């Protein structure tokens, strides 16, 4: 077996184990009286975070291997709902507003876009946002926009220094999302990531796919 395959298999197992752990923890919480939940919830949150991290790891690994992520018809309203479901446990105080029309349709790798949105939600939450809005359009190409009411991006990030490792978190997260956007290609065109600050406050990230 090649080294890469071995690493891939280990990551894959890690992800499966964490998923199983998460299921057990959920079940355990259901079984114990409510006044103990406060002790168990942080464990559940951390496990969820780890699971999302390993999902990201799996995808990064495969993106690095130049593997093929099949693109297919997909519906951003659903994708966003799934991402909210996957993160709401960790950020129970954040208010999510999925404003995407149910008929809005895209053509993308659901798995990758799901991860991109989770990453952006995590970014927003860590920056201190308390509300997040999601919009999408399939009128002229496909765009999906995530806005929050946090402090917005600092100038160096707005200037495009995403992969600087000085700032952990948001910079690296954006780099990952850009990789995902870039993986969506049609002829010469490829997906792009735009970031901006809202007035008076908040961040706006737009993913455009060909």
């Amino acid at each position: 077996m090649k080294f890469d395959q071995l690493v891939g298999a280990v990551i894959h197992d890690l992800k499966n184990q964490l998923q199983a752990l998460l299921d057990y923890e959920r079940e355990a919480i259901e079984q114990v009286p409510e006044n103990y939940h406060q002790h168990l919830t942080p464990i559940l949150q951390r496990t969820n975070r780890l699971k999302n991290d390993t999902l990201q790891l799996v995808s990064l690994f495969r993106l690095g291997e130049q593997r093929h992520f099949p693109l297919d018809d997909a519906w951003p309203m659903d994708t966003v709902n799934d991402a909210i479901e996957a993160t709401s446990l960790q950020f129970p105080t954040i208010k999510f507003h999925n404003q995407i029309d149910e008929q809005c349709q895209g053509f993308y790798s659901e798995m990758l876009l799901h991860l991109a949105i989770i990453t952006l939600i995590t970014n927003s939450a860590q920056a201190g946002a308390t509300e997040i809005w999601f919009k999408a359009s399939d009128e002229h190409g496909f765009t999906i926009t995530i806005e929050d009411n946090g402090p917005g991006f600092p100038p160096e990030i707005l200037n495009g220094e995403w992969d600087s490792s000085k700032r952990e978190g948001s910079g690296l997260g954006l780099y990952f999302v850009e990789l995902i956007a870039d993986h969506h290609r049609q002829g010469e065109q490829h997906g792009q990531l735009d970031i901006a600050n809202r007035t008076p406050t908040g961040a706006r990230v737009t993913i455009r796919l060909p």
Partner: protein
Amino acid sequence: MINLENELASQRILIIDDLVEARTSLKKMMVTLGASHIDTAVDGNEAMKFLHEHDYDMVLSDYNLGKGKDGQQILEEARYSQRLRATALFIMVTGENAVDMVMGALEYDPDAYLTKPFTLNMLRERLTRIVDIKSQLQGINQAVDDGRIDDAVTEAEIVIKQHPKLLMPLTRILGRLYMQQQRYHEAIRIYSDLLNIRSVSWARLGQAICMHHLGDPHGAIALLKQTLSKHPLYVQCYDWLARIMLELEKPEEAQQFLQKAVDISPKAVLRQMELGQIAVANEDYATAELAFDAAVRLGRFSCYKNSDNYLHFAQAVQSRISPEGGRDSRVRADKVMRYVEELRQDYAGNSGVMFDSSIVEGKTFHRLGQEEKARKSANHAEEILARIEDPSLDQQLQMTEAYIETDQHVKAKKLLRKLQKQGLDENAIQEEWQRLESKLNEITVRKYTTELNARGVDCYEKGLLEQAVEAFDEAADFEEAGVSVLLNAIQAKLSFMEEKEIRVSYLKDCHKMFKRIGPIGDTDERFERYDRLKNTYLRLKRAAGL
């Protein structure tokens, strides 16, 4: 959008997963979503049993089902044996790490893929979309189920203009229907329309297949290779590359491509069979052995179970069985015998298979040097053949070879004559007939000259020179007669002339035979005899005044 609960309530649903937790959990979710009529199967065999017994509206199958068939094979079998309507849904459940391998089936494609892990909410959303789209395609699929293909095409052509959001599923359906109707130019056009705005591997594959049917193999090859560079695990591309290479009479390239397909996806019976057949044609028996063995193993409980795989396996290993072959040879021979037993049990009513089994059993015994057992198998085959009404030329030629291998030359000769009278139409049959005839001739001639030679020697020793000359002459008449037979014939004639009278015709015969022998070196052990006879010959020739 449709109401999922209402839709599911009336549907008969089959869930297939080899893991009990996954099965129960999915069933529980489906019940929560409104389904009430659910069957569950643990593997492909059980699933096929259910599919044959009932008419399902929806099948949810895991792709990876452990050792047996995978989900794609179940789908292919179900649609192939017409046990799944076009209006019924087939949803493939996959782990995220297998998506790029699973997606892309062109001919037998599932309605949708569902990536694990998923929550109840995700399943609800996904199913709602899937059922909603299927309901919009209802009219078209109904026409397909009714065999009204023209109607299906017409309606699909209308709907695709009205509903751009159904472009992907409609292109799939239309492309497939156009291909069924051999309207390849139209299929290429519709795939192109999609590819202009959506980069999907299956549309490229579809175009390549059409180009191939339209007689442009090189264009098809280029497109397939291009598709593979973007989507390296797209196994169907390798299948088609192999097929096209075969038609271009490049069997070695074909085998290489097919081998790649098998490496990526080793569980498909038909693909293993194809690989085995190409490998036999390429005389690569090691590959053929592996492929047919896999085909037997994988096909054992499927609709692709096929006695040919057993027999092809047995034929492919013949060259690697010998009495001194050691363990490997023994293992192979044992396997052949086991397969023969399996065939005798499973195909007892099929005299063709029974005949083939006995033939291959006999061959194997012959290879092992167990001639008595080989003969028994051949006799068994003979009995079966006698019962087959109107046996094929191929079967009779196989019988002939079995006769030859078991020393029953008269029977072999008779059968060959009979076949010649009947007429051999095909080239391959003719070639095989000729191969067997020369094999038989070689054997009889060798045997016959040996006998004649022995008779000659016997007469010579008894002093019956005339009879000795006659016997040796007959033996020497065959082209295959060896040097010793020729020297015997010369010696008999010379002795006759020395004792009785000189005959010019005998001298001429001796001359011819010396010429046939050619020069013999003085290191040859026969040289002394040759030299002595040559001197006698020259002396007699001088005495005759020639």
